[in-house]
C-alpha cells in the first residue's frame, strides 16, 4: 500500500498492523459530516450498518468543545444542556466555515454565532476563536474538523476492531475544489485518507440505486430505468440531484447546490423575534453570548415544533432585562424565510432543467436531511412535481452516510456474493472548471454536469505580437466573470515561439478522474509537427493555499493584461 506523502498522522498507533491487513481490501467507512449532525456507517459484509457512540447515538452533534487544554468533540462529550454548546467554548458549523475566505457572505453570516469569527474582508482566512476560561483561543476550521474526525475514527476503530484508514466523506454540491482540499487536509490531520468525496445527494442516489436493485431482484423485474430527484437540505447546505438508475448503476444527470439551510432559517427567525438582534449578536460580550444562546435555543425549539403544529408560543427571558413572549404561526415562519424557500425551489427547477428531465419522467422524489421535515419544504417539492407523496424508503437523516458506506465498499473493491454491491455511481461535475481569458472572462473548459471522468480541451491564443509568455489562471464556478468564481491555481507557459498575435495555438486541456482529481495540461501546439517546441505542462489543481483571494488580487495587479490569452476565434 503506497503511503500518501501528505499524511500527517496525529495519532497513528496503527502503523504496525498496516502490513497484515493489506492483504484484504480495507473497507472504507462512510462519514456524513453535517453542519449540525454527523453519522458514520460501514459495510459489514452483508449490509450497511450505522455505528453508534457510547451513548447509543447514531447521530452525533458536530461540534468541538474547547475546555481547559483538551478539546473534545460531539462524539464523546456529553452536553448537560443545549446551552452549553452555545457558551462560546464550542465551535460548530465548521462545515460552513471551512475553506472560505473572509469576504464570503457565508462567513459573515457566521459572525453571529456564539464563538468568535472575525473578518478583515481582504480574501484571507477568517479568524476563528473559542472562549476558553474567558480567553478567546484561536483555532481553524480544519483543526476543529480534524479533532472531530479523530474522535469518530477512534470510535469506529473500537467498534470494528481494526484500524481505519480510508474514508468516503459526503460533501455539499456547492463546495469548491479549494474547500475539498481543506476537507482532505483535515482528514490527513486525523490520519485518514480520503478515498472519495461524494456530493451528499449522490450518496443518497447510490443508496436508492441499491434499494431499486433489491426490489428488482425480488420482483424479477426487467430493470427499467428510473429517474429520481434527490433533495437534501440540512443545517448548512441545500443540494439537489437528478439521477437515472437502472441495474444498480446510478447515473447523476445534474447537480445543484447552495449554502442555504436550517442555519439561515434559524437566524432569520432570531432576527424576526428580536429585531435589534444584530448588535447583540456581533459584540460577543460574555453576557450577550448567554442571551444569544437562550434566544437561539428557544428559536430552534420553536422551529422544530412548527413542523408538527401550526403555531407555537415563544417565551424566553434573555437575562438582560428583555423578555420575548410571542406566538409565532407557521405562516409567519414561512413568510420570514420566503427567500430561502424560493431559493430551494429555484435549485430544484434548475436541476431538472439541466438534466433535461420533465416532471412526469421522475419516478421518485427523495427528500432527506434535517430540513426535509419542514412542511413548507415538503409542500413546495410536491407542488413542483404535482404529486401527493415523497419517496418513503429512506431514513432522512441516515441516507447520506449509508450511501457513502456503499461507495466506500464499492471503491475499496469489495464484492458481495449476493450482488448487493453490484453498484456504481457515475458522477457528474457540480461546477464548471475553466480559465481566465478574453480579459476578465471565465471560459469554462469542462462545463457543469459533465459525466466524470471527463476530459476536454480548448484552444487559446495570444493577445500581443511576439507574446512569449501566457498566464493560465484556473477557476471553478458558474459566473461569467472570474471574480465570481473560485481561484484554483495558476501557472505560466513560457517560451512561446514569437509570432503575430492570434497565431500561436495554446491548447489547455483538463482532465478529471473518477476520484475527482483535476489535472490541467497546457502547451503550445505546432501544426504539422508532432514534436512540441516547448514542453507541455501538467499541473494538479488546486495549487493555491490559504489567502487565495489575495492571490487573485495580486495576480491581477502584477500582470494585468500583459500575459493575457484569448480564446481562438473561429478560423475560416
Amino acid at each position, binding site marked *: 500500500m503506497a503511503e500518501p506523502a501528505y499524511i500527517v498522522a496525529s495519532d497513528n498507533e496503527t502503523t504496525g498492523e498496516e502490513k497484515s491487513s493489506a492483504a484484504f481490501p480495507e473497507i472504507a467507512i462512510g462519514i456524513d459530516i453535517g453542519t449540525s449532525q454527523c453519522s458514520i456507517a460501514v459495510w459489514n459484509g452483508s449490509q450497511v450498518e450505522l455505528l453508534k457512540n457510547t451513548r447509543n447515538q447514531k447521530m452525533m452533534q458536530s461540534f468541538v468543545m474547547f475546555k481547559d487544554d483538551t478539546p473534545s468533540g460531539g462524539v464523546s462529550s456529553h452536553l448537560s444542556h443545549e446551552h452549553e454548546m452555545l457558551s462560546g467554548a464550542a465551535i460548530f458549523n465548521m462545515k460552513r466555515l471551512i475553506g472560505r475566505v473572509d469576504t464570503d457572505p457565508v462567513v459573515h453570516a457566521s459572525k453571529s454565532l456564539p464563538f468568535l469569527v472575525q473578518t478583515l474582508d481582504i480574501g484571507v482566512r477568517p479568524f476563528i476563536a473559542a472562549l476558553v476560561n474567558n480567553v478567546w483561543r484561536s483555532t481553524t476550521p480544519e483543526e476543529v474538523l480534524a479533532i472531530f474526525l479523530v474522535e469518530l475514527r477512534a470510535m469506529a476503530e473500537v467498534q470494528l476492531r481494526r484500524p481505519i484508514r480510508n474514508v468516503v466523506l459526503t460533501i455539499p454540491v456547492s463546495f469548491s475544489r479549494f474547500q475539498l482540499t481543506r476537507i482532505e487536509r483535515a482528514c490527513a490531520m486525523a490520519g485518514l485518507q480520503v478515498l472519495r468525496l461524494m456530493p451528499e445527494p449522490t450518496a443518497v442516489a447510490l443508496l436508492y440505486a441499491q434499494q431499486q436493485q433489491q426490489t428488482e431482484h425480488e420482483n424479477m423485474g426487467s430493470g427499467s*430505468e428510473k429517474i429520481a430527484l434527490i433533495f437534501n437540505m440540512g443545517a448548512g447546505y441545500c443540494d439537489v440531484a437528478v439521477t*437515472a438508475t*437502472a*441495474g*444498480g*448503476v446510478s*447515473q447523476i444527470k445534474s447537480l445543484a447546490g447552495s449554502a442555504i439551510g436550517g442555519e439561515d432559517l434559524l437566524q432569520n427567525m432570531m432576527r424576526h423575534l428580536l429585531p435589534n438582534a444584530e448588535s447583540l449578536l456581533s459584540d460577543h460580550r460574555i453576557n450577550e453570548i448567554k442571551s444569544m444562546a437562550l434566544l437561539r435555543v428557544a428559536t430552534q425549539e420553536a422551529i422544530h415544533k412548527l413542523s408538527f403544529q401550526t403555531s407555537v408560543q415563544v417565551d424566553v427571558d434573555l437575562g438582560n432585562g428583555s423578555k420575548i413572549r410571542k406566538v409565532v404561526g407557521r405562516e409567519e415562519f414561512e413568510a420570514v424565510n420566503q427567500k430561502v424557500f424560493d431559493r430551494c425551489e429555484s435549485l430544484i427547477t434548475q436541476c431538472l432543467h439541466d438534466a433535461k428531465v420533465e416532471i412526469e419522467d421522475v419516478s421518485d422524489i427523495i427528500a432527506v436531511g434535517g430540513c426535509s421535515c419542514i412542511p413548507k419544504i415538503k409542500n413546495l417539492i410536491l407542488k413542483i412535481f404535482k404529486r401527493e407523496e415523497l419517496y418513503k424508503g429512506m431514513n432522512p437523516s441516515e441516507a447520506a452516510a449509508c450511501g457513502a458506506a456503499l*461507495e466506500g465498499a*464499492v*471503491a475499496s*473493491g469489495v464484492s458481495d456474493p449476493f450482488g448487493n454491491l*453490484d453498484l*456504481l*455511481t*457515475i458522477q457528474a461535475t457540480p461546477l464548471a472548471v475553466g480559465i481566465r*481569458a*478574453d*480579459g476578465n*472572462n471565465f*471560459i*469554462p*473548459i469542462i*462545463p457543469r454536469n459533465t*459525466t466524470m*471522468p*471527463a*476530459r*476536454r*480541451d*480548448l*484552444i487559446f491564443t495570444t*493577445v500581443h505580437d511576439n507574446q512569449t509568455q501566457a498566464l493560465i489562471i484556473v477557476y471553478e464556478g458558474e459566473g*461569467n466573470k472570474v471574480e465570481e468564481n473560485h481561484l484554483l491555481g495558476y501557472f505560466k507557459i513560457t517560451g512561446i515561439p514569437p509570432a503575430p498575435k492570434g497565431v500561436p*495555438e495554446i*491548447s*489547455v*486541456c483538463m*482532465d478529471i*478522474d*473518477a*476520484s475527482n482529481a483535476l489535472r490541467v*495540461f*497546457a*502547451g503550445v*501546439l505546432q*501544426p504539422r509537427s508532432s514534436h512540441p517546441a516547448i514542453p*507541455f505542462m*501538467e499541473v494538479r489543481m488546486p495549487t493555491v493555499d490559504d489567502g487565495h483571494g489575495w492571490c487573485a488580487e495580486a495576480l491581477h495587479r502584477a500582470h494585468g*493584461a500583459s500575459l*493575457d490569452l*484569448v*480564446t*481562438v*476565434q*473561429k*478560423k*475560416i
Partner: protein
Amino acid sequence: MVLSGSAVTASQICGHSTVKNSIWSLSPTWRQRSPVIRCCNRKVREEQKMGKNYYELLGVSVDSQPREIKEAYRKLQKKYHPDIAGQEGHEHTLMLNEAYKVLMREDLRRKYDTSIGQMRAFFSRNTSNLGFSSWEGPFRQHALFVDENACIGCRECVHHASNTFMMDEALGCARVKVQFGDDEQKLEVSVDSCPVNCIHWVDREELPVLEFLIQPQHKEGYGVFGGGWERPKNVFSAAESFNKQLKHQTANEYQQTKTAHVTVEEETPAQAEARVNARKKIEEEKFSRLWDWAKEAFMKDMWKAE
C-alpha cells in the same frame, strides 16, 4: 485588448455542435477518430485504437434505440469505471462517456452518423464504380491488387484463377474481382504467371485506397481529387501520401458535408440568406486552401514518382 464575442466563441469551440472550420486538428471528427489529448501525453495516443467507432465501442448496432445504448453503456461502465476497474479504466471510461454523450443526443448523433455514413458512402461509391473487389470467405491479412498501370492485359491471371481476376475490357487490363475467389495454389500460380509482375500482395487496410486511386476517371464532388487528374503513375507512393492526407482532410471534408446536412435539416427560411452567403465564403476559402495544399503535397509526390 480585443475580445469580440469571445465567450460565445469559447463555448462553441468546446461544443461539438458547432461548425468548426478553424483548423483541421480542432475538428470534432478528428477528435472522434482519435480521442487524444493533443496537448499531452503521446502514450495515450499509442494506446488508443484509432478510429474506433462509437457504435462498436458501445457494442450496439447503428439503428439501436436510446434505451439499448443506455443499457450497453451501463453494462460497460460496470466493467470499466475506475471505481471498479481502478485507474486503468480511466481512458476507456473517457471514451465511453464521449460516445454515450454523442449517441444519446439526437442532434449530435445525427451529425456523427452523417460523418461515418459519409465515410462509408465514400468507399461504397467507389466500390460500385470501380468493381471494388469483394471477399470470398473470411477477411485475411493480405489481399491481391493489380497495378493497372503496369498490366499489359495478357489475361494470364484470368486463365489461372478465373474466380478471382477479371478483365476490364474497356481499359484492357486485369482487375481483382473477388479476393480469394480461388484456392491459394491457383492464386500463387496466377501471380507468378504475370509477365510484368503487376499483381501484388498488399495489406488489407491498404487495399481500398489502392483500388480507389487506381481508377482513372476523375470524380466530381470529392474536392481534393476532383480536379481532373488521371491515374497516378506510381499508385503505391500515391496511396501513401493519400493516407496521410486522408487523415488530415477527412476532418474538413466531413465538416463540409455536415454543414450541408445541417443546412438542409434545420434551416429556417429566415436564416437561409445569411447562411448561404457565409457558407459560400467559407467554402471558397476552404476549397482554395485545400486545393493549394493538395496540389502542393500530392503533385510533388507524383512528379517525384515519375
